[in-house]
C-alpha cells in the first residue's frame, strides 16, 4: 500500500515543486500578490505534510523552516526584498534536491543545507519554537506514557459537558463508547443539576455523568479519549488506588501538557434530558438551494476553482492508441490504393466515403496526439534553476525570462529537450553573459537577461534562447576551428558559417574546460539531440548584443509530411519541412566543377548537387547519373544544396517508425515509415546526407581534396 502512495507523493511533489517555482518566479518578477504567496506556502506545506507521513525527516525539517519563513511573509511580518527572494529561490532548489534524494537515494549536501537553514533562521524571531511534530497529549491507546504501570485500575470519571461542547459536534455517547473499549465501563447519569422545567434554558447544559472504568491502560489513554472536549467540559479522572499519588502524577502530567486539569470540582446539579445532545443528529438536512446561493457570490473567481479535472492515464495506453491510429491511416492509404487499382468505371461514391474515412482518421489522430502534448512550462521552470546555478558558479548575474510557457509539445520532445536546453543555457551564462562590472562598463544592466521562449510556427514548435551577452567571438571561434583542423587556414567563411562552427563535433571555445559548460560535451551534442528529435538548430549572433539559438521541432514525433521519392529503385521519403523547392533537371542546368563536383544552376545561382543514391551507398557501380529530379534544401548554415533523386511521386503524411532497436544509426536516414502498399520506406535526413556527401559538405574542403586525390 505505502509503496504506491509513496509514488503518488513523489509525483505530487513534482507538481508542488513546479507550482512553488512558478510562484517564486512570479514573486521574483515583482508581483507579491497574496494569493501567489499563499500558493507557494501551500506547496511547501503540502510537501512537508506528505513527507511527514513517510518519515522523511530531512525533508520535513527543511520544509518546516522554509514554510515558517514563508508564513511570516504571508502574514506580512517579513518584507520580500531581493535578498530574501534569492534565499527563497535557493531554498526551493534545495527542497527539490531533498525530494530527489528522498526518492532516489543519495546524499544530502549537509553543508549547503545548514547554510540555507541558517539563512532562513536569520529571518525568524527568537521565539520560533522547535518543530512540534509529535502529536501532543494524545495518540490513542497504542502510545502509553511510560510513567504508568500496567496493573488494572479502576477510574472514577466525572464528566460534565459545558454548553459550548454541543456546538462542536462532540457526542458524550461516542466518548463513552470509546472509553468502553479500554475496559468495562459503568455509566451513571447525573441529572441533579437539571432545574425545574420552567427554569430550564434550551441551550444550557445541565447533565453530567459519573463513569466507572476498569482498565489496565494508563491514565493518559483515558485522558486521550477526552482530548477533543478538553476545555469544553468539567472533567475529573481519579483512580481508586493511591489516589493521592495518582493525583500528584496527574497534576504533573497536566502541568507538563499545560492542561486545565483535574481541579474540576464536581458540582451537583439537577436532572433532565439534554436537549442539545438530542439535536446533534448525524444526518443533516439543509436546504441545498439556499446553500448554493449563499456560497456562490463569495467565490469571486469561480473559473479558478481548482485545476481542471484531469485523468491520469498510463503512457503506454496512449502510445498503443497512437500506434493503432497510425496503422489506421496506413490502412486507409492501402485501401485507397487498392480501390484505385480496381477496374471499376465509377468510383466517385467510394472515393467520397474514403475521403470521409480519411478525415475521421485524421481527427482521431490529432485528438490522440494532443493527449501526449504537454505545456513546456515545467521544463522552462527547471531552466530558471539552471541559470541561477550557472550564474552562481561563474560569479555572474543573469536572469531567465520565459515566454510562451503554455505552448504544447509532445511529451517525449519535452523530455529530450531538457539536456540540450540545459547545455545552451549554461553556455549562454558561461560564454555569453559578461561579468556584471564589464556589463556596467559598456552601459548594460548588470544583470544579464536570457529569454527562453516557445511558440508554434506553421506546424512546428520554435524554441528560442536569446541572451544579451557579448555574442559569438568570431575571430576566436575561427582561430580555434583552424587550430583544431576543422577548417582550412584560408577558409573564407561568412559570419553565419563561423557561428555554426560551434556545432561541429570536437569544438569547444572554453580555453580551459570550465566545470560548468565544459563537462566534455560540446554544442555538437546539443545539435545531435535536436536532430534526433527531427528538429533543427540555428544560431545567430550580433557582437556585443548577444546570441540567439533557434530550435525548430516537429509538433509530434509520430507523423510528418513527407515527399515520396525514388532513389535507386527504392521508395524513400524526404521531410517536406526541409525542402524549399523541387524541380526537374535538364542537362543544361548541370555544370561540372572539378573532378567530382557538379553544380546545379537555378536562375543564375549555382548550388552543389548531392546524389542521394551515392550518398547512401546505393548506386550500382555502372549506374549512370540519372537525369533526375532535384530537391532544393537548405542546411542549418543557410547554405543550399540540391538533392538529386530519380523521381518524385507525391506528398503525403507518413507515420514515423523509429529504427531504434532495429538497426544502429544509419547516416542519412532519420527513421522509417510504412507506405500504402505495406512496404517500408526510409525517411531521409537531408542534413546528414549532405554531411556524408563530400561534394557539398560546407566545410569539408579537406575531405573533398583527399577524395579528389583518391579518385
Amino acid at each position, binding site marked *: 500500500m505505502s509503496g504506491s502512495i509513496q509514488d*503518488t507523493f513523489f509525483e505530487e511533489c513534482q507538481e508542488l515543486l513546479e507550482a512553488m517555482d512558478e510562484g517564486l518566479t512570479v514573486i521574483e518578477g515583482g508581483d507579491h500578490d497574496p494569493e501567489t504567496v499563499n500558493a507557494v506556502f501551500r506547496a511547501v506545506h503540502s510537501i512537508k505534510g506528505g513527507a511527514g507521513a513517510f518519515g522523511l525527516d530531512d525533508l520535513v525539517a527543511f520544509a518546516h523552516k522554509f514554510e515558517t519563513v514563508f508564513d511570516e511573509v504571508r502574514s506580512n511580518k517579513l518584507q520580500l526584498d531581493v535578498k530574501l527572494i534569492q534565499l527563497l529561490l535557493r531554498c526551493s532548489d534545495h527542497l527539490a534536491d531533498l525530494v530527489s534524494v528522498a526518492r532516489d537515494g543519495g546524499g544530502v549536501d549537509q553543508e549547503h543545507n545548514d547554510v540555507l537553514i541558517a539563512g532562513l533562521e536569520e529571518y525568524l524571531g527568537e521565539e520560533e519554537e522547535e518543530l512540534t511534530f509529535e502529536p501532543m497529549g494524545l495518540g490513542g491507546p497504542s502510545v502509553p506514557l511510560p510513567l504508568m504501570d500496567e496493573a488494572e485500575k479502576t477510574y472514577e470519571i466525572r464528566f460534565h459537558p459545558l454548553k459550548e461542547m454541543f456546538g462542536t*459536534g462532540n457526542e458524550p455517547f461516542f466518548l463513552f463508547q470509546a472509553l468502553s473499549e479500554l475496559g468495562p465501563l459503568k455509566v451513571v447519569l447525573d441529572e441533579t443539576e437539571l432545574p425545574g422545567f420552567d427554569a430550564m434554558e434550551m441551550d444550557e447544559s445541565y447533565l453530567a455523568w459519573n463513569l466507572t472504568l476498569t482498565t489496565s491502560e494508563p491514565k493518559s489513554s483515558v485522558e486521550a479519549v477526552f482530548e477533543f472536549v478538553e476545555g469544553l467540559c468539567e472533567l475529573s479522572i481519579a483512580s481508586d488506588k493511591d489516589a493521592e499519588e495518582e493525583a500528584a502524577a496527574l497534576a504533573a502530567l497536566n502541568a507538563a501538557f499545560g492542561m486545565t486539569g483535574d481541579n474540576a470540582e464536581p458540582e451537583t446539579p439537577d436532572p433532565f434530558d439534554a436537549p442539545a445532545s438530542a439535536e446533534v443528529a448525524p444526518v443533516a438536512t439543509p436546504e441545498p438551494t439556499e446553500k448554493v446561493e449563499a456560497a456562490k457570490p463569495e467565490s469571486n473567481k469561480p473559473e479558478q476553482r*481548482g485545476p481542471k479535472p484531469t485523468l491520469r492515464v498510463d503512457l503506454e495506453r496512449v502510445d498503443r492508441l497512437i500506434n493503432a491510429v497510425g496503422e489506421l491511416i496506413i490502412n486507409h492509404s492501402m485501401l485507397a490504393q487498392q480501390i484505385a487499382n480496381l477496374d471499376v468505371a465509377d468510383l466517385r461514391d467510394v472515393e467520397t466515403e474514403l475521403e470521409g474515412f480519411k478525415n475521421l482518421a485524421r481527427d482521431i489522430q490529432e485528438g490522440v496526439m494532443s493527449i501526449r502534448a504537454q505545456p513546456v512550462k515545467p521544463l522552462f521552470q527547471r531552466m530558471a534553476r539552471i541559470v541561477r546555478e550557472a550564474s552562481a558558479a561563474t560569479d555572474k548575474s543573469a536572469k531567465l525570462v520565459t515566454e510562451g510557457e503554455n505552448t504544447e509539445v509532445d511529451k517525449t520532445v519535452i523530455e529530450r529537450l531538457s539536456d540540450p536546453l540545459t547545455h545552451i543555457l549554461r553556455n549562454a551564462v558561461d560564454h555569453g553573459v559578461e561579468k556584471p562590472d564589464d556589463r556596467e562598463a559598456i552601459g548594460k544592466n548588470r544583470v544579464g537577461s536570457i529569454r527562453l521562449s516557445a511558440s508554434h510556427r506553421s506546424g512546428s514548435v520554435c524554441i528560442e534562447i536569446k541572451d544579451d551577452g557579448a555574442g559569438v567571438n568570431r575571430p576566436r571561434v575561427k582561430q580555434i576551428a583552424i587550430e583544431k583542423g576543422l577548417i582550412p587556414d584560408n577558409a573564407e567563411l561568412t559570419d553565419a558559417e563561423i557561428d555554426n562552427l560551434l556545432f561541429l563535433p570536437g569544438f569547444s571555445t572554453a580555453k580551459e574546460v570550465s566545470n560548468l559548460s565544459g563537462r566534455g560535451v560540446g554544442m555538437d551534442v546539443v545539435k545531435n539531440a535536436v536532430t534526433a528529435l527531427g528538429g533543427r538548430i540555428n544560431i545567430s549572433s550580433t557582437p556585443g548584443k548577444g546570441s540567439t539559438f533557434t530550435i525548430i521541432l516537429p509538433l509530434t514525433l509520430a507523423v510528418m509530411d513527407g515527399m515520396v521519392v525514388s532513389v535507386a529503385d527504392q521508395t524513400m521519403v524526404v521531410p517536406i519541412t526541409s525542402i524549399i523547392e523541387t524541380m526537374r533537371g535538364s542537362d543544361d542546368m548541370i555544370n561540372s566543377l572539378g573532378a567530382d563536383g557538379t553544380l546545379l544552376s537555378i536562375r543564375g545561382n549555382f548550388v552543389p548537387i548531392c546524389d542521394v543514391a551515392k550518398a547512401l551507398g546505393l548506386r550500382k557501380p555502372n549506374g549512370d547519373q540519372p537525369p533526375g529530379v532535384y530537391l532544393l534544401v537548405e542546411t542549418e548554415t543557410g547554405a543550399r544544396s540540391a538533392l538529386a533523386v530519380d523521381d518524385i511521386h507525391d506528398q503525403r503524411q507518413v507515420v514515423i517508425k523509429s529504427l531504434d532497436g532495429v538497426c544502429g544509426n544509419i547516416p542519412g536516414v532519420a527513421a522509417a515509415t510504412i507506405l500504402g502498399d505495406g512496404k517500408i520506406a526510409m525517411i531521409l535526413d537531408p542534413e546528414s546526407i549532405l554531411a556524408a556527401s563530400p561534394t557539398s559538405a560546407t566545410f569539408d574542403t579537406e575531405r573533398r581534396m583527399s577524395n579528389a586525390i583518391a579518385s
Partner: protein
Amino acid sequence: MKTKVLAIDDSRTIRNLLAATLEEAGFEYHCAVDGREGVDMYDDVAPDVVITDINMPNLDGFGVIEELRGTGINSKVPILVLTTESAPEMKARARDAGATGWITKPFDDQSLIFALKRVTGAVA
C-alpha cells in the same frame, strides 16, 4: 451502513493515505480537492463525519467549518481538522469555528481511527 467520511485535502498524497486507511477500516470514503469543492459536495455525500485540511486553495479549512456550521448548511456532523501544527492556538481557532476535533499530521492508522471513533462511535 458504513460510516461515510468526506475528506477535504488538496494533497493527493494525504487523500490517498486517508483513502487507504479508511477504506481498509470499512469506512465509505469520499474526497474533495479543496474547501470549495468539499462544501459543494457536502449535500450530495451527506457524510457522517468530515475531515478537512486547513491550508487549501479556494476556501481554507476554517472557511469549510464556518460554512458547514453556518446557517446555510447548518451541519451538525463531527468535523475533524487535519493539521501539522499541534499548537494550542490552532486547535482553539478550529474549535471556535466549530470543529469537533483534530488529527495531527503525520497521522498513523490508529490515531486516525481513534479520532473517528471518539466523534462518530464508528468501530473500525
